């Protein structure tokens, strides 16, 4: 406490009890103290590093496969193939390492774009209501009603003949487009509800009284409120996409071999799981689960930390 006699005299107190922190920095401060969050962050950062700098973790080419060396069991570190080889004789470690990038990139692109779409549509429809809202609601419902896999196949057949080249983005372009098309509706509904709640709050009215434009109100006042919680959903959504990629790979419409992704490895591994090569499934599945677990833990805690109600 500062000098009480001074603070008693003026109506405004220079009280120091509340440090100057934004919601976000406060959330981070809370998160920093949780061991599970720290562990999850380490895992997530590790895999991000693997995705960014695969050559740091393996010197092998995942595409170089010698069928004569098919299904060698793991030789652990020190051996030629630490995690063994798959049915085609490709090095599992190299595939895991190089498969990280497509898997994570796919997840980031899908979640990023769908958040963008969802937030935009949700804001506009919640803010203007009326005809805009009716149209958006219908579109949302149409997309909710069309099964994902159907669209996946249809779009695949549409884009099949379009050569996208083979950069890291283009190998995942097809699953990315499909998954994005069916991932945005949740955000739209969410943001719309949040906008409905926010737009009648007094601070929005205050901005209107000041003569702020609709755009300004949406961007500065209505959206930030929704976006905070949406960002907390993002890690969980990333986790979900990584999982879905495996399912698409299983259905043969995900990332395509010989490009590797965790999903493809899981799908291939699952074929050999019962044939005595469990490690082919367990390694990629372990990576997938670790990543998903890490992102979900981060997401859950972020949501709790950002939720003013739980404060």
């Amino acid at each position: 406490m500062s000098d009480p006699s001074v603070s008693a005299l003026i109506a405004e107190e220079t009280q120091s009890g509340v440090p100057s922190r934004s919601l976000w920095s406060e959330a981070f401060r809370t998160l920093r103290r949780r061991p599970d969050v720290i562990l999850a962050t380490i895992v997530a950062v590790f895999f991000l590093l693997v995705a960014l700098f695969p050559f740091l973790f393996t010197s092998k080419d995942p595409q170089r496969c010698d069928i004569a060396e098919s299904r060698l069991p793991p030789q652990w570190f020190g051996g030629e193939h630490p995690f063994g080889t798959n049915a085609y004789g490709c090095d599992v470690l190299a595939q895991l390492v190089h498969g990280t990038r497509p898997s994570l990139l796919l997840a980031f692109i899908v979640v990023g774009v769908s958040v963008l779409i969802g937030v935009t549509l949700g804001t506009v429809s919640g803010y203007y209501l009326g005809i805009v809202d009716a149209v958006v609601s219908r579109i949302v419902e149409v997309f909710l009603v069309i099964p994902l896999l159907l669209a996946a196949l249809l779009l695949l057949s549409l884009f099949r003949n379009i050569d996208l080249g083979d950069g890291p983005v283009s190998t995942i372009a097809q699953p990315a487009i499909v998954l994005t098309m069916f991932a945005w509706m949740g955000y739209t509904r969410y943001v719309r509800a949040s906008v409905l709640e926010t737009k009648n709050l007094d601070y929005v009215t205050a901005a209107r009284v000041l003569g702020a434009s609709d755009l300004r109100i949406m961007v500065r006042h209505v959206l930030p409120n929704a976006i905070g919680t949406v960002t907390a959903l993002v890690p969980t959504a990333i986790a979900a996409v990584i999982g879905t990629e495996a399912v698409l790979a299983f259905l043969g419409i995900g990332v395509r071999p010989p490009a590797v992704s965790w999903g493809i490895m899981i799908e291939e591994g699952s074929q050999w799981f019962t044939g005595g090569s469990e490690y082919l499934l367990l390694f990629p599945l372990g990576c997938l689960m670790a990543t998903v677990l890490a992102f979900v833990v981060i997401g859950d805690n972020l949501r709790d930390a950002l939720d003013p109600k739980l404060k």
Partner: protein
Amino acid sequence: MRADVTTDPTRDGTPVPLLQVDDLAIEFATPDGVVRAVDGLSYSVSAGRTLAIVGESGSGKSVSSLAVMGLLQQPPARIVRGSIRFGGTELLSLGQKAHRAVCGENIAMVFQDALAALNPVHTVGWQLTEALRARHGMSRRDATARAVELLDLVKVPNAKQRVKEYPHQFSGGMRQRVMIAMALSMDPEVLIADEPTTALDVTVQAQIMRLLSEIQAERQMGLILITHDMGVVANVADDVTVMYAGRAVEQASVFDIYAAPAHPYTRALLGSIPRLDQKGGGLAVIPGRPPDPTQVPAGCAFHPRCAFAEDVCRADPPPPTVSLPFDRTSACHFAEEVMNHDEH
């Protein structure tokens, strides 16, 4: 499970307290540290009497009454010490289940936000008699009849029809009446009303307060009225407990306290109320703001805002309540001076 209580007045006419809270202290574990929400609170209420607990927001009024009802979430809350006795029974040693059961029978509570306090998915009639059915096995038909009676009792018009309706179909004042009726359904001996009228219009507030006083008088209940409206207190209370930062800073009969407050906080509080019958002049204000619950100032918690404060207030914890004439107490080093101080 009705506790064995004697409500007969003793020979000399002073009633035996029904509910007695002694040296109650409650803490909350929060990420920012331990919050001492209630710290050494004592009060008692007897049959037919109204005790008003007043104080600023956050002073611990609701927390202490939730503790009485056994409704505190533990953790994060923790009752550090103290006792809550109903009749002869020490509620705190009963365990939460039995504690709530005793309260369910004998002590009822009316909450501030009636809309939130009523379950939106059940009819008003269902909720009114829920306890009777669940705990006393009352039949559905009897329960409905009883629900109508209860609504009649709190003067909800057209009660027969309205028992079948849902809370959202009621207006604010009517909901608060339903809350009161629900509280009365078990014929409690003590009623705790936590800011029953704060969200309501003056006209509705007047209706509700009148209803409460009538019912209390009729049933000779003990009433604990939690509020921060000094006007309401003046109108209905017999005794007043003023709380500040989790402590009872002053306790006295309503007439004494308004006539001559013995704590600087009470004095400031009374001074800052605008009055209908007075015009003009700057309003008296209490400078500063209530203390951050995690960092209650050393010494007397009120000292940073106190006009009477001296070094002793900053250094020493407030004295154990100073006993004053007429059964009054005040937690102030300078209680006598404050009481005798003449502002005007």
